[in-house]
């Protein structure tokens, strides 16, 4: 009965229009596999003349299991723009230019995504150049070594931000075995050594740039028939691979860990990182953590009102939930006005976490958080690129774009009691890694 009330509550409070059992994603997802295992996804969408072609490779820095080659998934993304025999770099650029597309790629811990948004009348040309480079990439050792400089350049631009430095240090401190220990950019020592890894790059391509690791996703002014025909024509002969990756399992953490950056030129930062769950569209853990984040750490939370609005000791505070294939960090971060308040702010956050474990969430706040989650989703999908980018994430996490509907349906199952249990499960001091930036010589909090 309580559960029914919780589901009805949002309807009563804010005119909630999402019905139970209804899929959150409002467009039909057409999905079919080619014989070689390549998954083809089409989402027709009202965007006259514009189409987005995304190729999702379910490979990121998570797959970098060997010593000395961290950052390689990202480096390889760079190499994919170095051309083939049929379309050398200059010719490839000419074609991209003629398509008038916004084209680029990105790599994260779990995925590498190549994306083009452009004139839907030129979809076949997009397929042709993408099909060619995914099967016939060919670069010289010189090109490989030269491109390594651009990766160093990317690291150079990123690292000027102390938050990037802290992020790097926190991962390295929190993890022992799992590949989430390093960032997508990789360890600096490995970036510096990249020019010497030409042979490994060939191996990397052989292993992962295979149909079983990839999904072709097309959204916008297209039809599923058209997309299937083009996929068959340009990717149908792609040979399946055989490599499977064995990602090391992270052992249980048995005590609080600490990392600190001394820097008095930038605002003080406190970051509390607990080991959290990996992605699942059947377990409630991740969506429950999302609700905890909304209720207890958003702009309407008690802690925000106390630390940011009333006391004004903190510029912002937030809780970020993990959204990754394997168990990842739940991060609570705060930017402070004065470094001397660091211990106080940490204590306030820890008090909030204790409260979540022991006190049931207020019914209205719970309902508001559900409403916010679902309306945020509805508000966010109004361009072909936006829709493709969102679905690419779910494909990377689960292999199936329908997972987005499964994931959001979990919110209907969660109760305020669940939030208490999830908090008890994850907010454990022995699984905590503290990261700080301040003018102090050592970490100023206990």
């Amino acid at each position, binding site marked *: 009965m309580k559960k029914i009330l919780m589901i009805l509550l*949002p309807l009563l409070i*804010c*005119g909630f229009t999402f019905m139970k059992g209804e899929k959150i994603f409002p467009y039909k997802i057409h999905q079919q596999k080619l014989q070689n295992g390549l998954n083809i996804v089409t989402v027709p969408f009202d*965007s*006259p*003349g*514009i189409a987005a072609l995304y190729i999702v490779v379910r490979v990121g820095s998570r797959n970098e299991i060997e010593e000395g080659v961290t950052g390689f998934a990202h480096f390889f993304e760079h190499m994919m*723009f170095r051309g083939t025999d049929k379309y050398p*770099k200059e010719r490839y*650029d*000419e074609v*991209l*230019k*003629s*398509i*008038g*597309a*916004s084209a680029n790629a990105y790599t994260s811990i779990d995925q590498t995504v190549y994306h083009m*948004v*452009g*004139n839907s009348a030129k979809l076949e040309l997009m397929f042709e150049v993408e099909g060619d480079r995914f099967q016939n990439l060919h670069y*010289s*050792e*010189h090109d490989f*070594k*030269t491109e390594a*400089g*651009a990766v*160093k*350049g990317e690291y*150079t*631009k990123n690292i*000027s*931000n*102390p*938050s990037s430095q802290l992020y790097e240090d926190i991962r390295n401190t929190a993890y022992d075995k799992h590949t989430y220990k390093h960032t997508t950019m990789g360890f600096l020592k490995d970036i510096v050594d990249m*020019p010497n890894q030409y042979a490994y790059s060939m191996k990397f391509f052989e292993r992962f740039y295979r149909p079983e690791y990839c999904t072709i996703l097309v959204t916008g002014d297209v039809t599923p028939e058209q997309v299937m025909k083009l996929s068959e024509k340009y990717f149908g002969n792609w040979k399946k691979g055989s490599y499977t990756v064995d990602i090391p399992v992270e052992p249980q953490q048995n005590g609080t860990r600490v990392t600190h950056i001394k820097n008095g*030129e*930038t*605002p003080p930062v406190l970051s509390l990182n607990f080991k959290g769950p990996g992605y699942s569209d059947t377990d409630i853990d991740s969506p429950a953590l999302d609700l905890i984040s909304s209720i207890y750490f958003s*702009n*309407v939370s008690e802690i925000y*009102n106390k630390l*940011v*609005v*009333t006391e*004004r000791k903190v*510029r912002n505070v937030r809780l970020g939930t993990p959204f990754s294939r394997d168990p990842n960090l739940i991060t609570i971060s705060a930017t402070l*006005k004065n470094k001397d308040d660091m211990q106080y702010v940490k204590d306030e956050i820890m008090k909030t976490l204790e409260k979540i474990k022991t006190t049931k969430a207020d019914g209205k706040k719970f309902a*508001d958080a559900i*409403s*916010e*989650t679902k*309306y945020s989703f*509805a*508000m966010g999908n*109004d*361009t*072909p690129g*936006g829709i493709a980018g969102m679905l690419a994430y779910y494909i990377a996490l689960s292999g199936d774009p329908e997972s987005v509907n499964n994931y959001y349906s979990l919110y209907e199952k969660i109760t305020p009691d669940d939030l208490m249990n999830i908090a008890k499960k994850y907010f454990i001091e022995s699984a905590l890694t503290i990261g700080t930036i301040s003018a102090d010589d050592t970490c100023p909090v206990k």
Partner: protein
Amino acid sequence: MKNIFIIILMVLFFSNAFSQEVVELKMPKSDKVVVKLMFRNGSICDPAGKEGLTRLTVSTITSGGTKDLTYSQVQEKTYPMAARYGSNVDKEVSIFTFEVHKDFLNSFYEIIKGLMLTPSFSQQDFDRVKSNQQNYVDQVIRSSSDEEYSKMALEDFLFRGTRYQHMVMGKTEGVKSITLDDVKEHYKTYFTKNNLTIGLAGNYTDEFKQTLINDMKTLPDGNPVIASNIVPEKIDGINVEIITKDAFGSAIFMGFPIDITRSNDEFAALMVANSYLGEHRKSYGLLYDKIRTTRSMNYGDYSYIEWYDNGGGNMLPPPGVPRSSNYFSIWIRPVQIAKQLKQQYQELSDVKIGHAHFAIRLALREVDKLVKQGMTEKDFSATREFLRSYIKLYVQSPSSRLGYLMDSRFYGRKDFVNEVDDLLAKLTLDDVNKAIKKYWQIDNMKITIVTDNSEAEELAKSLKENTVSPMSYSNFVKSGLPKSVLEEDEEAANFKLNIKNVAVIKTEATFK
């Protein structure tokens, strides 16, 4: 492509009463409603000694409450709607953007009305917002991204002594001196019904539109005097400011004012030239090809003929930053400094400076070649074809489409994206090459470089003395380079620049 947006029923409606202009983009199938309120004011309206006041006024409104609701109550009411609202302040406009699902339009509108017409301007909200803005100008801009830092420093350098000089966020002393009374007064003077353009997009009724128009007529009734015709000082030679701090690389921005905006038909010709030289975040540009692809000196290199907001975060140019005073600029993303090169490559253990001097020369040499030789027919055709498709991507979402339409009004146009397509269609190679010659040169400009303390003095000396600056490659890259690249390197390393002044300044001396 012309038919791309035919499905969007676009009604352009002008209302002369109270000088309010209304721009509409009706989308009956949409679930969303977007309201944009654009005021002609911006940071050029900041009084001397109170730089940052327009930004702080806007932030106090969007991060504050109404006469009936506190900031926290506003947050609580809007949270379950997932309604989004925020603002953008630039040099000459301030824009409030409100987006909400149609289910909540009426209840959210009460918040819009409250914030815009009866903002609470509480001391508590003001203190919170001011402290964050102070922190941005004191610390954040100097410590979070060297690229953004060098970009802001270039603007400060180019427009020194004008109302365009200071950052929209203000200056350290300027923000410090702003009081809540200043904010209240600034709102009354500059956020009036007489300098407002209303934008509406999505699924709304005529009744809603009329209510919005009528309500906005109750904004303060002032006649703000907005400075216009910003004239930057004439630049004599190449003037460089090197900003020193603890840095991992050298972040470079360089440029000079140009007397052209989207209002001019010639802008289309310069768009083609600029796209060919350095289209933002594209690998097809000349600069990208020479500096990144061939020599792998950094992450990317681009050029601009107008302000591009948050270039590090945006792939496509966002609307909402129209300006009447533009400048041409080149963005060279951080290149390696000597300290890093020495650590990484044994063969470079004796280099005195990193890649900054060579990169500047290489980039300016390409601009110079373009000025002297012009584009070829082939490059012109390919670039024009690209742009005619690409500009359609600027306006994919209702919010960006509406934003571009509103910016069009600023420039005296109805629909820039469609009009520029017509202009591009009519262009000839001769038009483009004439525009290049008319607007671009390399002898008089300003350059800002944010770099490491260890690099600054040697780099300054090298620039000042026009010292030959050979590219310092690692052995394994150098050995594979074709002769043509090495020859080009030789020419670039010896390329004389019209350097007049080079100053090395500490980070704390910037934005004074």
